[in-house]
């Protein structure tokens, strides 16, 4: 299997096989990342599409192919927030993007733990879900996350802590009631 670096080199030469290989390799991760931030499958699809088009058009601007993955996630992040902002301007989004389905307080006691965690995650701010996804799901390093978000490593750690704390606060009532 070719490495990312080899595929990036081939893509720079215009080989569409390289584009197809990179798309196949990263489409699920990028789509999941976009969905975890936006909670909207249509928006995630648009953002993922735009991400790979940007990748193809701007691959020549990537000087160091060893950071391709971070570069790709940074593009995806920009596309998601751009589309979210556009939707917000159009009046379809409140200040804070949150889950608009059933609220945890009204959930049945028999709710599975995973479902409850997912529900509470959906109530977090997009930037909290973003950093949790990159760290816990994609298992990126703090340095990689910092290069994606444009923050310092200490800012990433701080935001990650706040995200964990915010989620802990949302889950606290269920722990205390012994529901999960």
């Amino acid at each position, binding site marked *: 299997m070719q490495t990312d670096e080899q595929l990036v080199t081939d893509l720079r030469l215009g080989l569409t096989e390289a584009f197809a290989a990179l798309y196949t390799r990263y489409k699920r991760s990028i789509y999941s990342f976009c969905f975890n931030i936006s909670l909207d499958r249509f928006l995630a699809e648009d953002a*993922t599409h735009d991400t790979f088009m940007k990748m193809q058009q701007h691959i020549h601007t990537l000087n160091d192919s060893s950071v391709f993955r971070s570069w790709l996630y940074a593009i995806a992040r920009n596309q998601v927030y751009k589309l979210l902002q556009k939707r917000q301007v159009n009046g379809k989004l409140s200040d804070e993007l949150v889950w608009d389905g059933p609220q945890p307080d009204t959930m049945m006691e028999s709710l599975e*733990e995973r479902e409850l*965690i997912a529900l509470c995650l959906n109530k977090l701010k997009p930037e909290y879900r973003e950093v949790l996804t990159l760290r816990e799901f994609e298992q990126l390093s703090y340095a990689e996350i910092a290069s994606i978000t444009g923050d310092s490593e200490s800012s990433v*750690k701080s935001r990650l*802590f706040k995200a*964990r704390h915010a989620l802990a606060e949302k889950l606290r009532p269920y*722990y205390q009631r012994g529901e999960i």
Partner: protein
Amino acid sequence: MNHEQFQDLVHRYLDERLTDVQSAQMFEHLSVCSDCRNLMQSSLRIRSFYQQQEPEEVPSSLDRRVAASAGLIPGTAQRRHLLVPLWTTRLSVSLPLAASIIFLILVGSLLFSPVLFRESTLSGDKRIESLSPMPPEIQEQLQLFR
């Protein structure tokens, strides 16, 4: 231990970078601080949640859109994208074919060069006169031969 110190230890614990001393400090704090205990439990549950999570399935409409936008035809990834600069494209032309093309270009340039074209339109004496400026004595000898 305050919450700021605990924050750093949480990261280290989750990254498995805690020393034995730090670990002892952290668990000592957890035994007396319910807030931090709740945080630690939640963090571990979040980690477990994400570790068991599968990436989302990509809708087939996305595959079709990307293939269309990227200039790909499903199943045949041979077409090149028009936006790729020409100077970065790699041509696959065999050496004999390349040599034949160069040869044809050279022959073609000779056939249609202005000098030969001009000569081919002339005839007889005019052609001789036009070839080169000959000394008068040689031109006289040529006339005698005729």
